[in-house]
C-alpha cells in the first residue's frame, strides 16, 4: 500500500491543472513507475472545477479507485468534490495565503499542508509557477526523489529555454524545502523508483501515432471534444512523412475531404465524436457504395445532442452499427486499451484497403484522455504491416477491363473485392457514384445489376468474416460460472476488479470484445456460463441487446451512464451483488 499513490491536483479551468498533472505523471513514468491518469474536466475555458488524477504503482494500473492520498487543492471546491475519496492519512496541499483559501478547514483526520505557493513561485521567478511549487511539496510528501520531477520539467519546458526550466526546477525545490522545514516528515508514503523504461500516452495520441505508422497521410477533421487530441497530435507530425492535417469547416466537409483523399489513393482518416458522427452519417453510404477505403474514428462522449461533452459514455453503438439510410456495409473495430488504440488503428487501415470499405474505429472518452504507461516495445513499429489490398497497376488492367477496354472498378469478383486503380494510372480511368452503379461505376437501375452489386458488396463482408480474426480478448478463468462481457475502455477496470473478486472467491471469465461488426461468436461462451453479465457505459444496454440477439439468451447488465467511467471498486461490488446477492459487499 505505501508504495501505491493516488494523487490529484484540482482547481478551476484555466489554472493549468492539466499541464501540472501531466508533469507529475511524466515524472513518475520517468522514474520507472506505472501510471494511470484520469481527468475531471468541464467544457469551459475558465472557472468551474477541474482535476487531474494520477494513480501510480510498481505494477500495471488499469483503473481509477475511490481513494485519494495526496491532493493539491487550488480551490476549496476541489476539497469538497473529493471528500468521498479522501481518507484518514490523506494529505492536502493548499495555499492559505490565497484570498479564497484563507478559511479552508482541512478535516481533522487529514493532514493539511499550508504552503505559500504563489509567494514561493514569485521567489523562483514568477507566480505562474505556483503549481510547480506544489509539485515540489508533493514530492516531499510522497518521498519521491525530486530529480525525476526535474527531468519532467525539462521535457515540458525545454523548448522555452534553459532559464525557464531552471526557474521551474527552483520553484519545485522551494516547495519541497518549505514543506521539510515547516512540517513533520512522516506521511507514510514511500514512492520507490525503478530502472524500467516507460512511455506515457493517451488513447487519442495512440490513435494518431497508429495512423502515421499505418501510412495515413491525410487527416481532415473539425475540432470536437474528446477527439481533438488526435488532430492535434497529427498536426505537424504527419507533415514529416509527407502528409497533412486539414481543418474542415464542418464534419460534412471533414468526411468528404477524407473521402476525396482516399479516392486519390492516400490512406485517409477523419475523427470526431457523436455530434460529428451525426453529420458524417450523410456520407457513410457514399463511402460504402463507392467502395472507398476510409477510416472514420468516433471517440464517444455522453449524448444525445450536445449531451455532456467532457463525460464518458458508450452510447454510439447503435448509430455506428445502423446509422445511415439504406443498407450500408461497414466494419467496426473498437480498441479496449490505450496500446490497442494504436494497433487497432493500424488494423483499421489495412481492413479499409483490403475490403475497400468504411471502417469505424470506435474509442470512448475514457480511453482517449487516459494517460497510461507502457514499455516502448508495446508499440513495436517493426511489427506494423501494411496491406493495400487489390491495387492494380497500369500493366495489370487488362483482365479487369471490359470488351471496350474500360476498367471495371466494381467488377463482381468471387470474394466480392474488386481491383482498384488509383487516379494517374494509365488506362484505369473510371467514375463511381453514390447512385447504384454497374461494374463500370455508372448509374444503373437494372434490377439484375442492382442485385449483383448489392450481393458483391455483401460478399466482401462475408470474405472479411472468414479471412480475418474477430476474436475476443480473453481473461480470467475459462471454466468460471460467471462470464463478463464488455467493450471499450471498461477492460481495464474489469481486469482489476477480477483480481479482487478472485481473492473473494469469485472467479470470472472475461471476454473483452474489440470488434463490434463483425464481432466474435459468443454463443458457446454464454451457454457454458451460469450467468452472463454485460458491462457497458450506457443506459439502454446497447451491446447487451446485441448479444441477446446474437445468442438467443437473456443476459444480466451492469450499466453506468452518469458520465463517469467504471471504477474497479464499484465493479467488485456490482458483480458480487449479481453473483452472490446474499452477501452484498460495499467496499
Amino acid at each position, binding site marked *: 500500500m505505501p508504495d501505491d499513490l493516488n494523487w490529484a491536483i484540482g482547481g478551476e479551468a484555466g489554472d493549468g491543472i492539466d499541464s501540472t498533472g501531466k508533469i507529475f505523471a511524466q515524472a513518475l513514468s520517468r522514474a520507472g513507475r506505472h501510471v494511470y491518469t484520469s481527468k475531471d474536466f468541464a467544457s469551459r475555458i475558465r472557472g468551474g472545477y477541474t482535476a487531474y488524477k494520477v494513480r501510480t504503482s510498481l505494477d500495471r494500473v488499469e483503473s481509477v479507485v475511490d481513494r485519494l492520498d495526496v491532493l493539491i487543492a487550488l480551490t476549496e471546491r476541489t476539497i469538497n468534490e473529493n471528500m468521498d475519496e479522501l481518507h484518514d492519512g490523506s494529505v492536502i496541499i493548499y495555499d492559505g495565503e490565497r484570498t479564497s483559501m484563507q478559511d479552508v478547514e482541512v478535516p481533522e483526520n487529514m493532514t493539511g499542508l499550508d504552503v505559500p505557493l504563489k509567494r514561493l513561485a514569485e521567489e523562483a521567478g514568477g507566480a505562474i509557477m505556483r503549481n510547480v511549487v506544489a509539485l515540489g511539496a508533493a514530492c516531499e510528501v510522497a518521498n519521491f526523489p525530486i530529480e525525476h520531477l526535474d527531468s519532467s520539467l525539462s521535457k515540458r519546458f525545454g523548448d522555452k529555454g534553459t532559464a525557464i526550466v531552471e526557474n521551474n526546477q527552483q520553484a519545485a525545490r522551494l516547495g519541497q524545502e518549505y514543506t521539510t522545514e515547516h512540517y513533520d516528515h512522516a506521511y507514510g508514503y514511500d514512492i520507490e523508483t525503478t530502472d524500467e523504461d*516507460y512511455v506515457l500516452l493517451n488513447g487519442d495520441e495512440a490513435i494518431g501515432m497508429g495512423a502515421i505508422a499505418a501510412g495515413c*497521410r491525410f487527416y481532415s477533421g473539425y475540432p470536437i471534444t474528446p477527439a481533438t487530441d488526435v488532430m492535434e497530435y497529427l498536426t505537424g507530425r504527419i507533415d514529416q512523412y509527407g502528409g497533412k492535417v486539414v481543418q474542415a469547416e464542418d464534419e460534412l466537409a471533414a468526411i468528404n475531404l477524407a473521402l476525396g*483523399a482516399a479516392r486519390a489513393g492516400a490512406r485517409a482518416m477523419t475523427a470526431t465524436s457523436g455530434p460529428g458522427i451525426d453529420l458524417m452519417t450523410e456520407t457513410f453510404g457514399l463511402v460504402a457504395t463507392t467502395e472507398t477505403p476510409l477510416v472514420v474514428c468516433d471517440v464517444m462522449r455522453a449524448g444525445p445532442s450536445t449531451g455532456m461533452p467532457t463525460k464518458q459514455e458508450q452510447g454510439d453503438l447503435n448509430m455506428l452499427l445502423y446509422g445511415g439510410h439504406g443498407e450500408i456495409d461497414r466494419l467496426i473495430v473498437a480498441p479496449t486499451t490505450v496500446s490497442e488504440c494504436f494497433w487497432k488503428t493500424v488494423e483499421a487501415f489495412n481492413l479499409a484497403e483490403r475490403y475497400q470499405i468504411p471502417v469505424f474505429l470506435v474509442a470512448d472518452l475514457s480511453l482517449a484522455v487516459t494517460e497510461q504507461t507502457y514499455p*516502448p516495445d508495446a508499440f513495436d513499429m517493426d511489427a506494423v504491416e501494411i496491406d493495400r489490398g487489390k491495387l492494380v497497376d497500369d500493366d495489370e488492367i487488362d483482365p479487369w477491363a471490359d470488351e471496350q477496354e474500360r476498367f471495371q472498378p466494381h467488377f463482381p469478383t468471387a470474394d466480392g473485392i474488386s481491383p482498384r486503380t488509383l487516379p494517374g494510372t494509365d*488506362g484505369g480511368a473510371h467514375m463511381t457514384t453514390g447512385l447504384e452503379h454497374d461494374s463500370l461505376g455508372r448509374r444503373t437501375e437494372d434490377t439484375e445489376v442492382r442485385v449483383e452489386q448489392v450481393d458483391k458488396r455483401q460478399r466482401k463482408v462475408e470474405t472479411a468474416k472468414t479471412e480475418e480474426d474477430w476474436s475476443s480478448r480473453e481473461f480470467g478463468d475459462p471454466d468460471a460460472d460467471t462470464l463478463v462481457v464488455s467493450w471499450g475502455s471498461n477492460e481495464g477496470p474489469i481486469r482489476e476488479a477480477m483480481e479482487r473478486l478472485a481473492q473473494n472467491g469469485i472467479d470470472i471469465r472475461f471476454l473483452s470484445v474489440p470488434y463490434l461488426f463483425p464481432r466474435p461468436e459468443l454463443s458457446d461462451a454464454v451457454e457454458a456460463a451460469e450467468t452472463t453479465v454485460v458491462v457497458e457505459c450506457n443506459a439502454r444496454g446497447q451491446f447487451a441487446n446485441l448479444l441477446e440477439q446474437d445468442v438467443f439468451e437473456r443476459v444480466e447488465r451492469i450499466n453506468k451512464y452518469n458520465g463517469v467511467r467504471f471504477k474497479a471498486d464499484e465493479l467488485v461490488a456490482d458483480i458480487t451483488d449479481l453473483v452472490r446477492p446474499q452477501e452484498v459487499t460495499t467496499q
Partner: protein
Amino acid sequence: MSSDVRFIDFKSDKQPTWCPGCGDFGTMNGMMKGLAETGNHPDDTFIVAGIGCSGKIGTYMHSYALHGVHGRALPVGIGVKLANPDLEVMVAGGDGDGYSIGAGHFVHAVRRNVDMSYVVMDNRIYGLTKGQASPTSREDFETSTTPDGTNQTPVNPLALALSSGATFIGQTFSSDAQSHAEVVRKAIEHDGFGFVNVYSPCVTFNDVDTYDYFRDSIVDLGETDHDPADRDAAMERIMEGGTEYTGVIYQDPDSVPYEQREGIEGSMTEIPDGAPDDAMDLVREFY
C-alpha cells in the same frame, strides 16, 4: 502523351440524358475543351460532380470521377487535389448544389484557394426535381413551391466569392462556346481556385432566364476596358444590377495556392510496406 489529347478524349461513350437544348451540353463541351487545351489527360484528371442535372456530367465525361453527395462536391475535390497535387481536379455542379445545400463549402473552398477549378451550371431553377426555386431564382419567380415568388433576395455567387477572398472569378454563357471554353481554360490555368459561374439555361422549367434573355442582357467584359486584376472594379460590376457580365471578372495575379502555402510537395499515395523507418522516434517522444 498529353500534347495529342483531343477534347473528345474526355467524352465517355454514354449519351447525355439532358433535355434537348439544355445549357449543360455547351457547359460540358467547354470543360472538355479547357481540359484538353491545357494539356491534361483523362487518366490524370479527376472530376467531382454534385447532385442534380449538372451532377450527371461525371458520367458523360471520361476521366477518374466521383459523383457524390448533394452539396459536398467541393470538399471531395479538395481532398483529391491535396492528396495528389499531380492530378488536375475539376468540380462541377449546379446552383442548388453549390449555393444552397453546399453554400458553406463554397465559401470555404474559395477561402482555401486550392489549385483546382469549379464550374457551376447556374440555371436559376431546380430542374431534376421538376421546377422548384433555386438560390439564384429571382425574387418574383413563381414555381410549384413558391407560388408567390421566392420573396427572398437571390444569392449573388460572384459577390459571395469575392467577399470570401476569391482569386479567380469567371462568368460565362453556355451557348457562347468559344468564350466559355476560354474562361474555363483560364480557370484551369489559374494558380488557385478557378471559379466559373455558367449561365446554363433550363429550357424545360425556366421561362424567364432563357437563351433570349441572356443574349439580350450579357455584356462581355473582354470587349470592354475592364481590368480583371482590379478588385474594386470587379466588385462594382458584380454588385451592379441588371447587367449580366461574362468573361474573367476578377483574377488575383499574385495568387498562391493553399497547397503551396502549406508545403504540400507531392502525392501522398505512396507509402512504405511497414511503419516509417524512424517511427520508433514517435514512441520515444512519449518518454
